[in-house]
Structures are given as C-alpha cells and as structure tokens.
C-alpha cells in the first residue's frame, strides 16, 4: 500500500513543479513593464530549473536502484537575455538619450510556458487520479 502512496508522491512532486512554473510565469507577466527593482534596473525574467529526484521512501526505491524519480524545482534563476530598450523621453527611468530599458520578458514566451505548465499539471493530476482508482480497486479484493 505504501508503494501506491509513493506513486502519488511522484505525481504531487510533478504538480508542485508545474505550479511553481506557473507562479514564475505569473510573476514575469505581472512585471512585464517594471522598470524599478530593489536590486536596481528593470525586472529580470525568472526561469525555473527542474531536476529529477527520488522522492520515494528508501525501501521501495532500492528495488528500482533509485532510477525512478519524481521531480524537484532545483532553483529559480534570472534569465540572462538582453533587455529591451525603447524611446520614451520624460519617463523618470529613461536615460540621457531618452531610452527606457524594459524587462527581458516576452509575453508570447510566457503564454506558451503557461500553457505547457498547465497541460503538464493536468497530466500529473490524471496520473494521480488513476493511481487513486487503482488503490480503490485493490480495496475491492475479496469483497
């Protein structure tokens, strides 16, 4: 039975990772025009780094030699893409030539990222659903 809950842990790790991706997308989208940050300069697009990591309990993962893994958000990094510069004299954050540096966030990119995260989240949740059905079914044994 424990093994079944380990499977659910894998799916929940996947859902957590995808939710984090969505959070980062939301943050990027919200800051698409932010020209001031605490660190100075415009907002920098954030990206998540995912790694495969064993999330199950020791005994079960040994059977697979630790090869079957869940996923973990390793880090949230700042994108190194160049900033966009537009002509906007009069803006308080514009430089001497009247150029304003905007965040390196691309709305289109964020949208595709958002859709891909949503779909991946759905896939993980359907695995969770199936696993749950299997557990319920196994409770029917000898009924």
């Amino acid at each position, binding site marked *: 039975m424990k*093994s*079944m809950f*380990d*499977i*659910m842990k*894998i*799916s929940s*790790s*996947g859902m957590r*990772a*995808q939710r984090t*991706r969505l959070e980062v997308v939301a943050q990027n989208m919200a800051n698409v025009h932010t020209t001031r940050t605490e660190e100075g300069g415009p907002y920098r697009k954030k990206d998540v780094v*995912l*790694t*495969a990591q064993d999330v*199950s309990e020791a005994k*079960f993962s040994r*059977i*697979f*030699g630790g*090869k*079957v*893994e*869940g*996923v973990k958000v390793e880090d949230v990094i700042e994108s190194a893409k160049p900033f966009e510069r537009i002509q906007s004299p009069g803006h308080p954050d514009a430089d001497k030539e009247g150029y304003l540096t905007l965040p390196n966030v691309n709305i289109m990119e964020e949208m595709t990222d958002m859709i*891909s*995260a949503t779909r*991946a989240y759905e*896939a*993980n949740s*359907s*695995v969770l659903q*199936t*696993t749950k*059905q*299997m557990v319920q*079914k*196994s409770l*029917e*044994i*000898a*009924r």
Partner: protein
Amino acid sequence: MSVTDVIEKALYVRSRYQKVIAGNIANVDTPGYKEKDIDFERELAGRMKGSKEVEVIETPQQEGFTRLDENTVNVEDQVVKMTENSLMFSALVTAITKKFSLMRYVINGGR
C-alpha cells in the same frame, strides 16, 4: 503456483509500472531526463522465479525528433500506457475477487 500467487505477483508488477509512468510524467519538463520503462512480462517471469530486482529500461532517444533539452518523455505514450496499466490492474483485481468468491462458494458447500 496457484492462481492467487500469479495474480498477486502480477498486481505487484502493475503497481511498480504505475510508479515508472508517474515518474516519467512528473519529469516531462526536466532537461536531460530519459523516459523509463519496464518489460512487464519479463518482470512477471522474474517474480515467479523469486527475483526481487526490477530492471528499468531507459529510452536514450525519442522516435522521430529530438527535443532541444534532450528529454525523451512522450506524454501521449505514457498516458496510453497508464490507462492500459490501470485497466489491467482492475482486471486482475476482478479475477482475484472471482477466485475468492469461488472459494467462498465451495466453503459454504455450494450454497
């Protein structure tokens, strides 16, 4: 080896298979992750012989195209496999339940 034993072992392998699939779907966006699989029949045969090991097969390359992040998970494939796996699991549970109800029938003297 009795029917109950065989079904029990098959259920065991099916539940492990579900874990492999869950791992693949969770890692659909992990760069460099390779899709994993197990050979159900071979694992079941191994179980019959009393082996405890499960051999995990990795897919080094996806058919057709290669993703830039070198991840080889094919979600559609995995969902199909998952559905098949859970249906087979259900079938096994039904089979073992029938076996038990037959036993109960005999125990009760055919009543």
